[in-house]
């Protein structure tokens, strides 16, 4: 078995980290407070060509795989940027996946080079208030009308819409009741957010203050049929093929935030003197930090395995879900152990760990909850009866 990274992959880690480190913890503390979109951070990555990491070379990207994208997002997070730094980059990697795989040549020509250069930002709109994990129950509907579709409905937890030009949206083109299989009859569109009939309302939330999550209301929004991605009625399946890599990307982010959080704790444990010695000399402080580190490393191994399988066209559902579960937990545990190490100072914003602690908590809920990922393992890996 070869666990080593190639020279090029090592360089990806080093160079990404160098760019990310130019935006220090104070930058992110300030942004967390002002909620300002980290445009200069995103621009730095766009300028150096990182947004196109997974976009094919023919469309202005680097044509690299999920493994390299995981390394990129891990390093961004390990720099202390948190989800506020990772998400804007993530949105140039994950939402374009169905376009890369199922889009028409014209769509690829039109959108992929702009996404790779950072000229175009994407949002992501799947979840609905009445259909969370049970995606087949979405009711936002696109009715064909001549050369257009007319979309009506509502979405929730739509990411990045305040700064996106278009959003990848999943809608029904046939009602739930009318389809043979409930996963059929759904379609993907790359909807222009400047279209008439769209209302966007931002949701106040626990973390990731720089990057918005929204409610999205659509009242008879006309979308040209040329914005349909892939085959009508098969949108769910188009999306599905991108879900495993997304789980891996998110797992890489969780481990990265865990590393950033842990580093703060380790530093504090070395520097903080109580009873005439550094608190890190106490096993009560040392063990949780060491334990958290071991869990981060194990989780990251599974991220790398899943990404390697995916990039080599092998099934990776098991690994992607295991990576997501373990990484979300390990990332949170690492930040929590670090916060505990900081004692009272951990509660102060000045010490940065509270921000990472808030942000990393997201990954136990999104993109799917730990419990739904466990359901996958129970049903599809262990062969137990479906529980829901």
């Amino acid at each position, binding site marked *: 078995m070869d666990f080593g990274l190639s*020279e*090029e992959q*090592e*360089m*990806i880690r*080093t*160079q990404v980290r*160098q*760019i990310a480190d130019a935006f220090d913890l104070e930058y992110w503390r300030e942004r967390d407070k002002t909620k300002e979109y980290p445009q200069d951070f995103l621009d*730095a990555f766009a*300028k*150096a*060509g*990182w947004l*196109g*990491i997974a976009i094919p070379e023919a469309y202005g990207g*680097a044509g*690299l795989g999920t493994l390299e994208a995981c390394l990129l997002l891990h390093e961004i997070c390990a720099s202390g940027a948190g989800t506020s730094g990772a998400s804007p980059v993530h949105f140039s990697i994950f939402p374009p996946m169905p376009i890369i795989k199922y889009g028409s040549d014209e769509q690829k020509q039109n959108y992929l080079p702009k996404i790779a250069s950072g000229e175009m930002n994407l949002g992501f709109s799947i979840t609905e208030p009445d259909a969370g994990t049970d995606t087949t129950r979405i009711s936002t509907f696109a009715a064909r009308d001549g050369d257009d579709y007319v979309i009506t409905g509502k979405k929730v937890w739509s990411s990045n819409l305040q700064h996106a030009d278009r959003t990848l949206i999943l809608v029904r083109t046939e009602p739930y009741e009318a389809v043979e299989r409930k996963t059929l009859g759904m379609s993907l569109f790359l909807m222009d957010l400047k279209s008439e009939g769209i209302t966007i309302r931002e949701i106040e939330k626990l973390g990731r203050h720089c990057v918005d999550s929204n409610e999205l209301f659509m009242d008879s929004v006309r979308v040209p049929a040329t914005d349909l991605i892939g085959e009508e009625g098969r949108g769910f399946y188009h999306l599905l093929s991108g879900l495993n890599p997304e789980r891996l990307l998110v797992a890489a982010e969780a481990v990265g935030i865990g590393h950033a959080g842990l580093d703060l704790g380790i530093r504090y444990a070395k520097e903080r003197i109580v009873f005439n010695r550094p608190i890190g000399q106490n096993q009560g402080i040392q063990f949780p930090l060491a334990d958290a580190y071991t869990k981060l490393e194990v989780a990251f191994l599974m991220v790398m395995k899943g990404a390697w399988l995916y990039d080599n066209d092998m099934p990776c559902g098991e690994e992607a879900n295991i990576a997501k579960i373990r990484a979300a937990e390990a990332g949170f545990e690492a930040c929590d152990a670090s916060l505990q190490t900081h004692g009272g100072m951990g509660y102060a914003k000045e010490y940065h760990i509270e921000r990472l602690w808030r942000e990393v908590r997201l990954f136990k809920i999104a993109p799917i909850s730990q419990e739904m990922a466990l359901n996958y393992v129970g049903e599809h890996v262990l062969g137990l009866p479906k529980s829901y």
Partner: protein
Amino acid sequence: MKIAVLMKRVPDTASVFKIGADNKSVETDNLKYVMSPYDEHALEEAIQTKEAGKADEVFVITVGPDAAKETIRTALAMGADRAVFVKDDAASDTNCKGTAMILAAALKTEAPELIFAGKQAVDDDASQVPERVAELLDIPHASVVTSFELNDGTALVEREIEGGHYKMEMALPALFTTQKGINTPRYPTLPNIMKAKKKEIKELTFADIGLSAADVASGVTIEEMALPRQDRLNKILDGDNDERVAQLLSVLREEEKVL
């Protein structure tokens, strides 16, 4: 026109340094290595000169162990067209004089019209190698350059000197060492990182350039190496000034043995 950039692989200054078990060397096992930061300025200046259409090619040249290739790749990813790598593990026994001999010998066959180098390497801070190379090649040099302008066959540069700037014009071929402020080194872009692996790294041995390990041996023996002492005496001296001076002298003489 061909531009050479002298480059050195150095430990990241953020590293924690430890003395090896022999008490004569720095422990290198856990060190992270980077391109010496002043060399990044040198390379950036070379690339900008090429981008301005005033040069055809930029190559980096370094001497070091096999692992130095990693740093070479970074230079290629920043935009150097190719690299010359004088590889010899005995290089670890050389010093500024030997390194300059190696670089100069390798550069002779390349005959670049313009050479850039960082004003010093951040590991030994010797500030000697580029100037020695210029002397060995018998070309003029200007050190600690903060601005560089290339005109027809001549270079107009500004140097930092005590309390001011020194402007000078020099005919090429010539060598210049770069100071911070001359430019902002770029980050390698992802497309360039991917191109870097296809760029040529020309490997040379000492024999290829007509030298032997003995020719470039440092001739210096390191007796002992130690980190500066970090703990403090924390001694408060009592009495009037005369008494305290007497006590201080006695501490410096008898306890610390520095006088």
